[in-house]
C-alpha cells in the first residue's frame, strides 16, 4: 500500500481534473478537451529524442495546442470539431512515430511508480494553481459558458477567460501526464465531470460530485491496483467509467 505522502499528487491531480472537467463538460468541449491531451505526445517524443524532461516537452506542446484550439474557437465559421479531430489525431500519430517501445506505453498510460520527488512537488504546485484558478474564476467561467455576449456586457474579457481556462486544462493534463499518461489523463478530466452532469442540479453539486468521483477512482487505482497486480492508470479509468454507467442507470430511474 502506498504511503500517504505518495497519494498527495494523485489526489491533487484528481481534484484539479474534477474541477477543470466540470467546466469543460458544461462548455460542451468534451471532444476538444480530450483531443488537447493527445498533443502532449509529440512533445514527449521530442523530449525523449533530445534528452530533456518529458513533462517539459509535453508542456511546450500543450501550450502550442492550447493556442491553436483558442484561435480555432474564436473563428466560429470554421467547423471546429472537424479541425480539432484531425489535428489532434495527427498529433497522436506523429507522437507515436517519434516514441517507441516502453517509453511510448509510459507516455500513453502513465508510469506512477517512476515519479521522482521533483516531479511530485511540481505536480503538486501545478494542481494548487489549477484549483485556485477554477475556484477564483468560477463566476466568470459560468457566465461565459452560458453566453459570451452576457459575459461581455458584464465586463468580462471573454477571450482572456477562454485562454486562461484552456491553459488550466493543459496544465492539468501536464500534471497528470507522468501518472496517468496522455490517453488516460484526458479521460480522468472528462469522465467524472460527465458523470456529475448526469446527477447534479447545481454548480456546486456538479463540482463536488466530479471531484468526488475523480478522487475516488484515483485512490482505488493507486491503492487497489498494486494489491491485485493491475496497472494503476487503467484501473483508475475503469472505475471512473463504471461509476459513469451506474449514473446513467440512476438518471433513468429518477
Amino acid at each position: 500500500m502506498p504511503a500517504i505522502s505518495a497519494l498527495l499528487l494523485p489526489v491533487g491531480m484528481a481534484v484539479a481534473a474534477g474541477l477543470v472537467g466540470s467546466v469543460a463538460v458544461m462548455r460542451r468541449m468534451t471532444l476538444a478537451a480530450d483531443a488537447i491531451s493527445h498533443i502532449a505526445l509529440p512533445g514527449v517524443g521530442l523530449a525523449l529524442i533530445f534528452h530533456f524532461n518529458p513533462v517539459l516537452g509535453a508542456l511546450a506542446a500543450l501550450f502550442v495546442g492550447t493556442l491553436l484550439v483558442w484561435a480555432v474557437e474564436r473563428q466560429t465559421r470554421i467547423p471546429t470539431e472537424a479541425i480539432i479531430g484531425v489535428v489532434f489525431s495527427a498529433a497522436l500519430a506523429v507522437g507515436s512515430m517519434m516514441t517507441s517501445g516502453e517509453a511510448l506505453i509510459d507516455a500513453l498510460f502513465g508510469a506512477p511508480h517512476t515519479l521522482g520527488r521533483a516531479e511530485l512537488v511540481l505536480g503538486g504546485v501545478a494542481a494548487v494553481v489549477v484549483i485556485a484558478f477554477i475556484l477564483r474564476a468560477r463566476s466568470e467561467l459560468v457566465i461565459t459558458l452560458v453566453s459570451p455576449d452576457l459575459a461581455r456586457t458584464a465586463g468580462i474579457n471573454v477571450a482572456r477567460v477562454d485562454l486562461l481556462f484552456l491553459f488550466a486544462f493543459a496544465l492539468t493534463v501536464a500534471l497528470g501526464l507522468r501518472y496517468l499518461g496522455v490517453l488516460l489523463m484526458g479521460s480522468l478530466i472528462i469522465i467524472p465531470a460527465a458523470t456529475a452532469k448526469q446527477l447534479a442540479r447545481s454548480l456546486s453539486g456538479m463540482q463536488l460530485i466530479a471531484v468526488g468521483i475523480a478522487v475516488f477512482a484515483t485512490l482505488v487505482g493507486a491503492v487497489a491496483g498494486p494489491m491485485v497486480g493491475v496497472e494503476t492508470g487503467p484501473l483508475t479509468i475503469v472505475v471512473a467509467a463504471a461509476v459513469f454507467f451506474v449514473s446513467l442507470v440512476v438518471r433513468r430511474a429518477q
Partner: protein
Amino acid sequence: MPTALEVQHLSVTFGQDRVVRDLSFAVESGSTLAIIGPNGAGKTVVFRALIGAVPYTGNVRWAPGTRIGYVPQKLDIERDLPLTGIDFLRAKADVSHVSRDEIARALDAVNLDMDFARQSIGTLSGGQFQRLLVAFALMGRPSVLLFDEPTAGVDQPGEENIYALFRQLQREQGFTLLLISHELNLVYRYSDNVLCLSRRQSCFGPPIEVLTTERLQEMYGAQVKFHDHEHGHAGH
C-alpha cells in the same frame, strides 16, 4: 439631456452580406429607443455590434461610465445544465462586485419566485427564463438596458407585463432602455424614439413620425397589423 449613446455610420458585414448599412442615431440618457423591422433586418446584429460582440465599421460611443445590462432574445441552454438561477445570479453579483443581497432584490423586481430561481435554468419556461435574464441584467445597477424581444416563449399578456415592468423600473432606476420589438402598439405607447430597419433603408424619429402606415408597409413589404394612431400618442 445628456447623450447615453451615439452611433455614427455603423455598418456590419458578414462575408459578402452587408447586414447593417450606414446607421446613425443617438439616444438620450433615461429615454427609450425601440428598434423595429422585419425578420432578418439586422436588429439583433445592431445590438451585438453595440456591445462589441461582432466586428463593425463606424463609431459607437457610449457615455463614460456606462454599465450595460443585456437581455438576449434566446440562449441555447441545455436542459440538463447543472446550473440554477441562483448560481447564475450569484456569478453576476461576484463579477459586478455587488452584495449577494442584490439577488433577492433583483428577483423581487422581476416578480420571479425564489423557488423557480432554485431550479436549474434549463428547466424554466420561456417566460420564467426571460425574467431571470432581466434580473441578471438588472444586477449591478445598469445605466443602459438592452432588451431583445423573444419571438416565442412568452405569451401576449406576459409581454405586456414585461413592458409595464420596464416602465416601472425605468422610473425607479432611471436607466436608458433600448429594446427590439415586434409589438408595434407597445412600441408606440412606450418609446420616445423608434429606429426602423429593413434591408433597403432605415429611419429614425419619434413614433408619431416613424410609425406611419405608408412607412410600415414600405418596410415590411405587406399589410401590417398596426392600428393607427388616431387615439394619439399615449405619452409619458
